[in-house]
């Protein structure tokens, strides 16, 4: 059987013929579209390693059936850096050493971006910690992650104000 969806992934609209209705967004990205930046850590929504943005909201791609994404807009870690420039969240993770092994990092960064877009945490470290607690980092780079999200929030705010002015 085949099921067709039309989904925009990192700005490019793709017509995808799903070979199996059981395919999750995570396995679609990793095993079928060659976008292996998104990581599988638990496959049941407990660790956040597979976090991507769907229509601007962060979701666990392991719990999202690909078949439900007709017409959706998906952003993955591969879609953040523009031309030759890192996204402010990516740069902030490097500068603040917000990772060690790097396996949870794509999910942390997508979750951080989602959190910033939600606009609920600001640069308050307590709220950032809470808002980032769906993403487990076993190396425990949490201190750097919190600093990175604070720093990226401020930078994105400043950029937005610059644009507005």
């Amino acid at each position, binding site marked *: 059987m085949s099921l067709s969806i039309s989904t925009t992934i990192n700005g490019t609209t793709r017509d995808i013929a799903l070979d199996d209705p059981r395919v999750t967004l995570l396995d679609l990205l990793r095993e079928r579209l060659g976008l292996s930046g998104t990581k599988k850590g638990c496959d049941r929504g407990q660790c956040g390693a597979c976090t991507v943005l769907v229509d601007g909201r962060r979701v666990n791609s392991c719990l999202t059936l690909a078949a439900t994404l007709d017409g959706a807009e998906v952003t993955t870690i591969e879609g953040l850096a523009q031309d030759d420039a890192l996204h402010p969240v990516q740069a902030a993770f490097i500068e603040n050493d917000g990772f060690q092994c*790097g396996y949870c990092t794509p999910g942390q960064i997508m979750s951080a971006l989602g959190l910033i877009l939600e606009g609920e945490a600001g640069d308050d470290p307590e709220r950032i910690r809470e808002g980032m607690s769906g993403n487990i980092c076993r190396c425990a780079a949490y201190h750097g992650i919190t600093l990175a999200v604070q720093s990226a929030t401020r930078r994105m705010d400043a950029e937005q104000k610059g644009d507005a002015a």
Partner: protein
Amino acid sequence: MSDTIARPDRFGSNAGQPMTRRDGLAKVTGTATFAADNAREGLLHAVYVPATIARGRVASLRTDAAEAHPGVIRVITPANRPALPGDPEAKPTRFSFAIEVLQDDLVRYAGQPVALVVAETIEAATEGARLVTATYEADPPRTDLDDAPDFGIDTPDFGAPGDVVHGDPEAGHAAASTAIDATYEIAPQYHNAMETHAIVAEWDGDRLLLDTPSQALSMSCAAYAYLFDIPVENVTLRSPYLGGGFGSKAIPNGPLVLAIIAARDLARPVKLMLTRQQMFGPVGHRGQTRQRIRLGADGDGALTVIDHENLAATSSFEMFLEPASNASQGLYAAKALRSRHRGVRLDIGTPGPMRAPGEASGSAVLECAVDEIAEAAGMDPLDFRLKNYAETEPGTGRPYSSKALRECYARGAEAFGWKDRPREPGKMRDEAGLLVGWGMGTAFFPSPMFAAEARATLRADGTAIVETSAADMGQGAWTSLAQIAADSLGLPLDSVEFRSGHSALPDGGVAGGSGHTATAGGALHAAGGNVIRQLGEMAAEQPDSPLFGAGNARLRAHGGRLHVEGDETRSDALVDILARAGKSELVASGKASRPDEDAKRHAMNSHGAVFAEIRVDPDLGQMRVTRLVGAFAAGRIINPRLAESQLKGGMIWGISFALHEEARHDRRTGRIVNADLAEYRVPVNADVRGLEVITVHEDDAYVNALGIKGVGEIGITGTVGAIGNAIHHATGKRFRRFPIRPRDLLAT
């Protein structure tokens, strides 16, 4: 895009600079290739079926439904498994364990593979594994320390720690005017690296290509070569990035070998990635321990004896006893020291090394016990530790290669504000009415070295390639080893290409024991030094060189040039020496290991002091670590930014050891009931606040040529005890079981 942040104050050598990670760009853009990210033409997916009992045998396996499922190619069971030339229960390398690869119908622990399903897609393989039905003849599972008789160690070996006695423990007990006798229990813990164990295996004739995370590339290749009876040079293992290891990814395990068997059988590449649930079984864990510790002190508060007995769980078929009581050796100046070990065989997967094996579990108990006796002796916990400060290694009398622990105590205590701590427990409350407690612990970890080799190639354009099969599991090898290598050649970091994580490179040794930077770095240092030495010899014989006749004695490499020390006028560019010699490149090898004589002469350890503040809700039993200050002395720090991250990570592992991590077995089936990341608790971001790391400078002329001691594991030690002691200080109650749970607080 630059992955290195420019720092205006940067000068001098590369080592010691807080460079950002060289692999940072790849890791934040999703282009860092972890094992399971590898795609291959014709790739098949394998999923194994885990045993649902812990002890007994598989009575029947029905595979027809799985085989009929669309996409399923093969179901491998003990009945049809292709032969494996090597014995899966043999030990081809020093750190090998017996592995379970469908060699028989016995079930040794819950979660052991009983069949393997290979399919065209991950979905079909997953469903196929679900469709395999097994029936069992089950025996009652033994999963707790009291479920089986204990035994002693006849012949000490890896995984079988021998007893250690210094002085006269009985006399020490007799001489004590203050004594404590306490028994602590520590629950089993599972590594749970974020990247589950994974492999992509592909055969080409009798050549094997593996993408799989490895903390020990060379040793792993030797084991695979043995198991499949092929020359070791036929095994290519690529492990550029490990998504965490923590000790669990040093040696091959059964599931990985099953994937290789399937790939050969089907003549197609096979990918196997453990599910999170499968991480609780065949891939090692920190074994459960019960530790009795008896301390005695005289009227001045000087320890007369540390007597530490360890009872540790191992599997029914293999030996790895968590060497917990050894942590009582080497730290405090007791007149007598005794560390003993006994084991219990249970129906569990074989335990193995997990971040700070032995030291983490042993230090947790030792540091709490020291607090107990300090209180009994009426002394401040820090004063008691200073009173028992060891100027030379207790028991052996060997000098320490370096030991800035006193400075760690002082700086940590000052940063934390320890002097304001009320002696009596239960005296501090915050504005919300929560109980507040302050505790401390000493951190301690040996500084071992293993053996490694490296190669350095200087090229005519002034750039260099440096190579060793090191492993970066997050500690920062890609960066800190490149820093060492660049220094060894006197080159700026950007001129050096560092190649690593591939088995065809010179053997980078084992990334474990906190010894990887010292060992692989030592080999790189030696290789670069050998290039420089040869250049010096060449220049000395080149009449056109400013170094003609200079010899090697006072030469120093820096900034791409060789300088005669003390003579500004005499220097020569590395590339000019190479050009005059008519060479397009110069290659040299280097090795590192610690000579036995050096290891005997000095005691070599990293040290530290950890101070913790906890807030306890007296009604709910909820405990939160609100401040954690660690001061560590660990020899030379190659990259302060990355070392600090490692130390913080270790301290957070301390939080999780003290308050979170515990695998629980169902007593009837023997299965672990909380085998996932929702129920097996590890810290999340909200659990971590108020974290501060101080590194105390230490020059160590003996530990190795680079003065490196290692920072990967020490952060856990000290921290667990500090938190346990803080809880005691907050509540006045002593809990002797880790993790300490809200229900423990509420039950008393």
